[in-house]
C-alpha cells in the first residue's frame, strides 16, 4: 500500500497561522484583581488562556482579541486595550 501520511493533518497550533495578528483589541489582565477562578479559560474560544503563577496567562501569539474573557470575568480583571 502507498503511504498516505502526507495527506493526514496532524493537530498543531496555528492551523490558520499566527491568529494574534487578527487582534484589534488586546486583553490585559490585572494580576491584583484576578483570583484565578478560570472562568475566562472555560469560555475562551481560542483556548489561549492558561493558569499562571500569579494570575492567568494569555498566549498573545494566537489570542484573536474577541473580548469574551473580558465579558465573562466577574472580577473585571481583564481590560481590552487598542493594539498599537
Amino acid at each position, binding site marked *: 500500500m502507498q503511504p498516505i501520511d502526507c495527506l493526514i493533518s496532524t*493537530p498543531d497550533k496555528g492551523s490558520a497561522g499566527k491568529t494574534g495578528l487578527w487582534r484589534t483589541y488586546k486583553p490585559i489582565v490585572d494580576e491584583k484583581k484576578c483570583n484565578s477562578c478560570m472562568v475566562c479559560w*472555560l469560555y475562551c474560544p481560542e483556548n489561549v488562556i492558561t493558569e499562571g503563577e500569579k494570575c492567568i496567562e494569555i498566549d498573545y501569539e494566537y489570542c484573536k482579541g474577541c*473580548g469574551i474573557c473580558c465579558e465573562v470575568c466577574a472580577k473585571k480583571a481583564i481590560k481590552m486595550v487598542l493594539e498599537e
Partner: protein
Amino acid sequence: MKTIVMPGNPSCQGCPHAIGLKALGLALEDFVLVIPAGCSTIIAGIHPKATLNVPVLHVPFASAPAVAAGISAAFKRENKKKNVVIWMGDGGADIGFATISGSAVRNDDIIVIVSDNEAYMNTGIQASGTTFWKAKTTTSPAGKREDRKDLAAIMLMHRVPYVATASVGYMNDFIKKLEKVKSIKGFRFIHLHSPCPPGWRFDSSKTVEIARMAVKCGAWILWEFDGKFNLSPASKPYKDKNKRKDLKDYLKMQGRFKGLSENEILEIEKAIDKQWKYIECFENI
C-alpha cells in the same frame, strides 16, 4: 480531561462552535468526531495542520449517521469502548434530517450534537428551519416569515434514550450533560444553542452574554430527557413569565433584528409562550 481545540485555528473571533467543541474535550475521554460540511469543517483545520486533537472524519451531510453508526459497530466488534460523536450544524440537520431520523429509529449507538447558530453560516447566512422568528438572513432579507421548528422536541418524539438542549453560555450545564451522556447506550441527541457574531451581527465579545440572554428571556429553553423530562436548573426560573428578562433587550443586541416593529415583537413573544406550553406538557408526561 483535555482541551481538544488548538489555538490559532480558522474560527472567527468569538466563535460559538469553538466554545462548544471545547466542552467535548473536557467531558468525553475517548471519542471520534464525524463532521458534515459547515463552519466546523473549516475550524477543524487547514492541511497539513489540524485544529482538533481527536480523530475527525469529514463527511457529506446525509451520510453522517451511517458513517458514525458504522464506526460505532466496528468499535464494538473490537471491544473498544469509544464514543462516536456527530458534530453538525443546523443546516446539516435540515439537509440530513431523514438520515438522522432513521438513525434515531434504529437507536444507533452514537451521540449527535447539533451546534445551532440559526443559519447556514459557512455558505453565507442562509435561513434554516431553526432560524429565529423574523431574523434577517441573506435568504430572508425582510425577516424570516416561516415558523421555527423545534428540533430537540422532534428528536424527543423519536423516543430515544437521551435528548437535551444546551447552550454555549452555560458551559457547566453542557459539560454535565455530556458527562451523563457518555455512559448511556443508544442514540443520544443534544441541541446546542450557538450565537454567531458575524451571522447574527453582534460584537465578538458578546457570544456568551447573548447565549445567556436567550435563556433568560425564555427564547431558548434548557431541558433534559434521560427517561424522565426535566427543565435544567438555569431555565427553571423562566417558566414563570414574570421572571423572564425583556425580550426586546435580547433582540436589540443583534443586528439581524434591526427595524422590528412592535407588532412583530409581540408575535415573537407569542411564539415563545407557545414554546413554553409544549415544555409544560412534556413535564407532565
